[in-house]
């Protein structure tokens, strides 16, 4: 068996993406030269995507222990106990490069892959959140990608019957050649059914069930996910897998039935690396080996070479480890669901992955050599030569100057922000998803964190994804820490206690020292923030080489958080609740506009630092809001993030249909105080009689808190007061201190239509959003 290298001059290993050093390391582990089939297996398993060879040393620094953690990193998904014998499984994963090549299938199979990670553990998938990032929405190619990816996420999730309840959609030119499709899935399981991806018990059968194996997705992990795009390359299309959500639906039901009937000793899905990955990982985890008979693998096309069968990434396949006396029962379940199943081998005691074809052994590799003992690279990390300088005094005021036509009128800036592609209503997108199937969705997409009730209990799970890529460009430590702060804050403000963190680290080429520096800084920020907030990192995914000829993406640490609400009836939403309620701001605005939507509106990064983050204050803020919620002092709670305080308040008003009269004290500048995105701030409302108690509680947590107005009317009125307002007003004429005074209906219209207009989609529905 030989594999013809595409260019005769190039040695096979290089053509497969294996470096000369890595080839030496493979020889070292085998004690001989690998044959071509073995080399193909190594090329996939030692790819960045499967081996984490660059990021492993960094990820080892993350905190993973925490209350109730049942399964952490290394398993298919993190699992945390939520009481009542139940546990939540969750994980986020990327499908960036496949989605760039073929957006529909790339996104669809991204959903399929992460769902398999969930039900492989014995959990029924109950929700999906999708975090999507694209280039400039005015470009035709971006529109093509958005349309395909959104249809793909929906086409798959809607069909398998898992609601899409949240996520993000962000536009930045850095993603033009390399969009990000990160999908988080959440599952619910009875703890007694927790199933691990291990292959214990020599003599047990290895059963492959699900779809047949074909040539689709050959080298997806190595070719697509682990190399920089030279360009959008149609020749890479065969490396994109093709999704079949109906097959996945059958696989979910069959797998859960197998688990609940106690028929499997271990279960693993086939994703990147296909049979090679599933066999070697399960064997390695159990300290066993496997003898695989390649001829037994059901195929969808003839003439497949051995290496193709071994590394094919055909979708919707599972590997089960089954006691011989249970084979018949497993076959019966698969038959009921109309799923092909085949015994393709047995678990062995020798620790080797041995593959036979036509009765002849063609592969023998120690399982750890493919997985836990794969190569690890120590990459060079160098900060970029041109770091941002310290902010000049009054720099944030200069940023106002970047908006000459709007800078004088805060109301116009607010409207521009609310209608901008990154802040306008996401409804045209999330309406293409089924967000209510499974009848758990208490709060669906569009209004902060998603809330899912847990049937049979009074509890609810709360989930959010967030990434602050804008700040990460200037300071990746800060960007990652802020992402964790924001995602957990979004969970805490519902009254829920965050349980754990999953992450998808989207970065550039790790062999570039600046890109690797950004990754290491981000992992440090992720760890620092999680330690400060007392949260375990239970798993995640690293996606590197997110670069195109136009350059690298912004460092994007996507953070997924799941929290637990003990009493779903006590949940707090972001929208205003009642006329006459007092509006307060907890926390304080800090200078720093870099990375903000306001700066983006001005045509790029401000010549300014991003705002600072005090992790201890963040911790106290989240404790405070949860305590306030528990004492029923809070009517609504909204996070101040994209677009700053003014946008946060406008959203509370738009979502509730209730206006507000506000006085904003301008301590820095109108830009910073109204539109700055400094973290650790909340907009809260409360019944007037509870205001003193809420203020007292904030002070007990050492937090600034201030009454800024009250809920009511059909207009949003913000008066600007204080030294900053008058100072700036004098500097540039009195108009800076003009109040914002706008009809809610106008703001709502702007917010409703911004995204559809940016994408040139048909006019969205004007029916009231939400429930």
């Amino acid at each position, binding site marked *: 068996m030989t594999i013809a290298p595409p260019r005769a001059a190039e040695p096979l290993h290089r053509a497969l993406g294996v470096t000369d050093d890595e080839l030496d390391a493979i020889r070292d582990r085998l004690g001989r030269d690998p044959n071509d089939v073995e080399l193909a297996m190594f090329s996939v398993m030692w790819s960045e995507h499967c081996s984490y060879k660059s990021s492993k040393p960094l990820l080892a620094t993350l905190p993973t222990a925490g209350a109730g953690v049942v399964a952490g990193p290394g398993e298919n998904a993190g699992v945390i106990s939520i009481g009542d014998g139940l546990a939540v499984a969750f994980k986020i994963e990327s499908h960036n490069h496949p989605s760039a090549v073929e957006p529909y299938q790339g996104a669809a199979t991204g959903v399929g892959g992460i769902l398999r990670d969930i039900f492989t553990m014995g959990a029924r998938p109950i929700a999906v959140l999708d975090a999507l990032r694209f280039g400039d929405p005015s470009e035709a190619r971006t529109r093509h990608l958005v349309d395909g990816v959104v249809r793909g996420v929906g086409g798959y999730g809607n069909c398998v019957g898992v609601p899409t309840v949240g996520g993000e959609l962000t536009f930045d030119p850095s993603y033009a050649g390399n969009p990000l499709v990160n999908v988080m899935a959440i599952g619910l399981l009875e703890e007694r059914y927790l199933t691990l991806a291990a292959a214990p018990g020599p003599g047990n059968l290895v059963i492959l069930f699900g779809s047949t194996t074909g040539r689709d997705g050959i080298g997806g992990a190595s070719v697509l996910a682990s190399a920089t795009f030279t360009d959008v390359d149609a020749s890479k299309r065969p490396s994109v897998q093709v999704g079949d959500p109906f097959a996945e639906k059958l696989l979910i039901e069959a797998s859960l039935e197998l688990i609940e009937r106690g028929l499997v000793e271990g279960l693993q899905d086939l994703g990147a690396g296909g049979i090679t990955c599933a066999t070697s990982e399960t064997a390695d985890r159990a300290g066993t080996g496997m003898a695989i008979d390649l001829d037994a693998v059901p195929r969808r096309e003839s003439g497949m070479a051995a290496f193709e069968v071994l590394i094919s990434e055909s979708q919707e396949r599972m590997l089960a480890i089954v006691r011989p006396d249970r084979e018949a029962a497993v076959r019966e379940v698969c038959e009921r669901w*109309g799923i092909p199943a085949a015994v393709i081998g047995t678990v062995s005691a020798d620790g080797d992955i041995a593959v036979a074809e036509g009765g002849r052994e063609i592969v023998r590799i120690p399982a750890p050599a493919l997985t836990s003992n794969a190569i690890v690279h120590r990459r060079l990390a160098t900060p970029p030569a041109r770091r941002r300088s310290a902010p000049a005094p009054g720099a944030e005021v200069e940023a106002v100057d970047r908006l000459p036509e709007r800078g004088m009128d805060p109301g116009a800036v607010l409207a521009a922000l609310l209608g901008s592609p990154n802040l306008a209503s996401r409804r045209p997108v999330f309406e293409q998803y089924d967000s209510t199937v499974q009848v758990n969705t208490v709060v669906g997409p569009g209004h902060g964190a998603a809330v899912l009730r847990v049937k049979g209990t009074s509890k609810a799970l709360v989930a959010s994804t967030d990434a602050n890529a804008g700040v990460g460009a200037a300071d990746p430590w800060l960007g990652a820490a802020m992402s964790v702060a924001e995602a957990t804050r979004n969970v805490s403000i519902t009254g829920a206690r965050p349980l754990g963190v999953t992450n998808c680290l989207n970065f550039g080429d790790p062999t570039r020292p600046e890109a690797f520096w950004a990754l290491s800084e981000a992992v440090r920020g992720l760890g620092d923030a999680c330690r400060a907030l007392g949260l375990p990192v239970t798993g995640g995914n690293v996606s590197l080489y997110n670069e195109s000829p136009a350059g690298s993406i912004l460092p994007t640490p996507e953070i997924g958080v799941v929290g637990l609400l003990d009493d779903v009836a006590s949940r707090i939403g972001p929208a205003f609740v009642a006329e006459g309620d007092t509006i307060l701001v907890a926390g304080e605005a800090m200078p720093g506009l870099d990375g903000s939507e306001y700066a983006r509106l001005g045509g790029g990064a401000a010549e300014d630092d991003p705002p600072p983050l005090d992790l201890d204050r963040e911790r106290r803020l989240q404790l405070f809001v949860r305590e306030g919620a528990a004492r029923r002092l809070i009517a609504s709670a909204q996070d101040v993030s994209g677009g700053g305080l003014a946008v946060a308040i406008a959203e509370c008003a738009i979502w509730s249909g209730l206006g507000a009269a506000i006085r904003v004290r301008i301590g820095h500048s109108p830009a910073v105080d109204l539109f700055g995105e400094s973290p650790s701030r909340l907009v809260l409302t409360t019944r007037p009689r509870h205001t003193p108690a809420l203020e007292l509680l904030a002070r007990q947590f050492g937090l600034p808190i201030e009454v800024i107005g009250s809920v009511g009317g059909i207009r949003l009125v913000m008066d600007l007061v204080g030294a900053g307002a008058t100072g700036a007003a004098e500097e540039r004429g009195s108009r800076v201190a003009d109040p914002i005074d706008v009809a809610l209906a106008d703001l709502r219209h702007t917010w409703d239509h911004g995204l559809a207009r940016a994408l040139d989609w048909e006019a969205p529905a004007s029916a009231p959003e939400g429930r």
Partner: protein
Amino acid sequence: MAVRIGVVVFPGSNCDRDTMHALDLAGAEPVELWHEQAELDGVAGVILPGGFAFGDYLRAGVIARFSPVMRSVTGFAAAGGLVLGICNGFQVLAEAGLVPGALLRNRGLRFLGRDVRIAVEQPDTPFTHLSGPRRPLRMPVAHGEGCYFADAATLDALDAAGQVLFRYVHEDGNVAGETDDPANPNGSLRAIAGVRNGAGNVAGLMPHPERASEAILGSDDGFGLVRSFVEGAAAMAQAGGVLEATAR
């Protein structure tokens, strides 16, 4: 004793559990009817739930109608048994010719998941009699092929015979337009959201009453429809006619 309601489960059904959950809440005993089984296990009524019965890559419901269970459901319906199709179940009933009309792709050619409001056009049927005071009912739709279509003569006949059970309406109760009206999410002709057969014992609708059966989910407007069906089926079971018909 709780009335037994069958819920047909095709391999790609994905609202079967939701429907059974709502039936539980309504005090019924849900009975799973696997698509390969020919017997209806003596149920008093049958619900075809939402989902993508066989993936529905070709067209919604086009394969499901040939399932063994559908032969029994057809017989059950012919004998006067109560049958309700929700979303994909409606599509299957339409493909099987058990209710008039067809469900085309949404006019916007996109899957659409959102809350809609529907008016109960016929409040005195076994599917609607407990739907409460006459007001628009709010519940979700979630489908890609929900545009109700029939020729004009059929539509006239349906209207004349009172076979239109539900129409998409605005919040104020006014019937939605056929085009460019977000209150009619799929562009259904005459804003039809649900119909019944001529005999009045088989009905289908695109919106999901089972997803609007608990206040915690944002609306319990659909629960009256679920309860109507359960009580309607219970009344027929007491009469005994349908049970005998299926036993033959």
